[in-house]
């Protein structure tokens, strides 16, 4: 063990030595100093990620932690508490994490579904308070360029699912946003797809490329290389407006004539509710300062996300994100998943 630590340290040193020169923003630092509590932080802050290392959430958190470290000089350790598709980490944050500011979480809004539908009263997302918004990643619908929907629009696809119900194969991830988006399209258009279950959105996109399904839902980053190679094409995005980095892709709303076809991964930072107010404010300010760094925004942009101005400029991010959670609750109530 000791040997390994030494090795890791040596490798780390090697890495640091190769940094050409870490940029440090002075302006953000000054603003932060104003809200910094005198006695905090005196030890490293642990940022919990509930998904495995290497995924979208993990990369988002590690980039954030690194930028926050550069700005403040505080040590921030990213810790993957995985298991139960996020359930284990969510429950830990909500019920066991120390409320002293040293435990923070980088969450994705899937936490709301976990809390409302699966937590069975063991914990709730309201035990956690959002303190900073990071980015958004809207769900997209994809088809192959040589498959049955070559040159067709989303409207055509939905029409096909209406004419021949239960024959169009679409990849879904059961019990999550993928399922909800499909269900919403089915319900509001009187159509029915054949839902083939996959473990993740990425696996569904692979299924699409291998022609094992006709339609797949997923996110920009995982589909981008296949779009560039001309294998697949996005036919709709579940965001309020077209995205600047995918202008050709219409929104689900414009294709299907609705206004509530909105399914987006939101990524944000939370602390346990009982964390002291001054520490909450400082952590919020740290996130905000980090998000003002061009370097971090560029890194995030490479992951194919966008920054929702409504959430970025929200006067009170806690309320803004809680309102989003309530919107999701309304959907669960409306679809009979949750008792009002």
């Amino acid at each position, binding site marked *: 063990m000791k040997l390994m630590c030494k090795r890791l340290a040596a490798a780390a040193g090697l890495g640091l030595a190769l940094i050409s020169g870490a940029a440090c923003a002075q302006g953000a630092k000054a603003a932060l100093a104003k809200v910094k509590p005198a006695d905090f932080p005196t030890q490293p802050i642990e940022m919990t990620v509930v998904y495995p290392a*290497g995924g979208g959430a993990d990369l988002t958190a590690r980039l954030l932690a690194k930028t926050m470290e550069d700005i403040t000089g505080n040590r921030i350790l990213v810790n993957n508490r995985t298991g139960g598709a996020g359930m284990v980490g969510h429950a830990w944050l909500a019920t066991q994490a120390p409320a002293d500011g040293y435990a923070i979480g980088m969450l994705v809004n899937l936490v709301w579904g976990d809390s409302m539908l699966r937590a069975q009263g063991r914990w709730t997302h309201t035990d956690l308070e959002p303190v900073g918004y990071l980015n958004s990643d809207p769900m997209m619908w994809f088809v192959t360029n040589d498959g049955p929907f070559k040159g067709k629009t989303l409207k055509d696809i939905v029409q096909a699912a209406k004419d021949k119900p239960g024959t169009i194969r679409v990849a879904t991830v059961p019990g999550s946003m993928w399922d909800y988006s499909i269900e919403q399209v089915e319900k509001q258009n009187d159509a029915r797809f054949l839902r083939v279950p996959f473990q993740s959105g990425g696996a569904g996109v*692979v299924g699409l490329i291998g022609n094992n399904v006709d339609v797949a839902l997923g996110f920009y980053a995982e589909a981008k290389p296949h779009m560039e190679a001309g294998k697949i094409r996005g036919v709709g995005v579940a965001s309020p407006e077209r995205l600047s980095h995918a202008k050709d892709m219409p929104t689900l709303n414009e294709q299907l004539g609705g206004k509530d076809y909105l399914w987006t991964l939101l990524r944000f930072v939370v602390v346990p509710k009982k964390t002291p107010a001054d520490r909450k404010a400082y952590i919020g300010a740290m996130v905000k300062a980090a998000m003002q760094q061009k370097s971090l925004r560029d890194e995030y942009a490479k992951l194919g996300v966008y920054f929702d101005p409504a959430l970025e400029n929200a006067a009170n991010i806690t309320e803004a994100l809680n309102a989003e959670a309530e919107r999701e609750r309304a959907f669960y109530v409306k679809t009979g998943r949750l008792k009002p």
Partner: protein
Amino acid sequence: MEAMSGLFTGFGVILTPENLLLCLAGSFVGTMIGVLPGIGPLAALALLLPITFSLPPIAGVVMLAAIFYGAMYGGSTTSILLNLPGEAASVVTCRDGYQMAKQGRAGAALGIAAIGSFIAGTLSVVALTFFAPILGEWAIRFGPPENVALMLLGLVCTLYMITGSALKGLVMIALGVLLAMVGTDVVTGNERFTFGSIDLSGGLDLLAIVIGLFGISEILLNVETISKSTLLADKIRGLFPTREDWKASLAPMLRGSGLGFLLGLVPGGGPITASFISYAVEQRVAKDPSRFGKGAIEGVAGPEAANNAAVGGSMIPVLSLGIPGTPVTALLLGALVIQGIQPGPLFMQQRPDLFWGIVASMYVGNVFLLILNLPLVGLWVQLLRVPYRVLFPIVLMLSVVGTYSANKNLFDLWVMLAFGVSGYVLRKLQYDLAPFLIAFVLAPLLEQSLRQTLVMSPDGIMIMTQRPIAAVLIAISFVLVALMIRRGLTTRKTGGIPHEAHV
């Protein structure tokens, strides 16, 4: 020819002091984490990922990839010396590797494992060099029906591994399948067999089970015979493989390389499945299968080659299509994405420097690993001289740390402990644990693929016969089962399978 010029480009990129140093560092770290039980390549890669942010893309990925294949080299060490798998892919190496060590031939086993890893690692990179684009397209055709067929074949191969009572072996396979069902239902998203526990909602952790079942139970068994002061029964007989060892190992290594490479390619494959199937194949083709489990060098050479070749195979979908088939390759992909590079079908054309650089680094890394590992054999063998009372507390501590560090979940430690005690009891009762493990690994994939297949198929299960790859794999499974039954019937006439304890 395109591949050759590409490779030259690659070596041009990789042969700088900085890149070579990082490749060496990655190889060393990989070997170490392979040796340490519990701490796997995934955890190490996650820890080192932030370092790569500030490195040039090629340098970072070269180091991370070296850790990945380096771990497969190191994984066999504790399997052979302590009967404690360093990685799940080395579980099967325990069977004959540990028996060899007990006979004083640890050096030969370690040497063959290192050389087999080198040959397989290099062969799989050669295949990667020349066939990456074609094989990538082939791998993606592996849909749910093909996966069902592959998993079935894997389970059938497990039948061949059963030593001793066939009934006990089947019980263990069934138990493995059963316990794999705990967790979230892949189709409905509902929890099952979790008894309302959040910790069980994601199922039982593979790593905790491997360490408990094989590591902790081994310690418990050895504690009983603590009167012997060290592990070594006989004198160490030579540090390096003899001429006979070579002759016996070469064919298994080559078969293991081919098998591992092909299984690494496809989503349901991977190093664990590859090592198990390779073992079953070697046992099947051996002139005297009864030697297996008692220190047959083929049982080390084949699986160790297979798990290394699988690494090369699993790089193909990532590099040629941008599709990761395993968590580790997903993390490698993540390291590139963070640098603003998204490998996809055009990766080879758009960034030939990176593509060929990574490929070239794998040639270099395998040479480094061989140079690193062969001299270490002598050092590792000395571990056998360490007294029990010193060695086992250390191993126990490493097991606990390793299990906890994977998910940072205390519950996993209880799982490890429970499986440690169960493993001890089962081994006392002469149940073979390896079939349990392979069943546990294959069952979730089998279930998911089967249910996907049935959802997407218009003619129910008949879809399996309509897809050529699936049909061939199913046919092989049937032939293997038929052969097995025939063998069972003939031995019954002559007095049954010898009832042999396997520990």
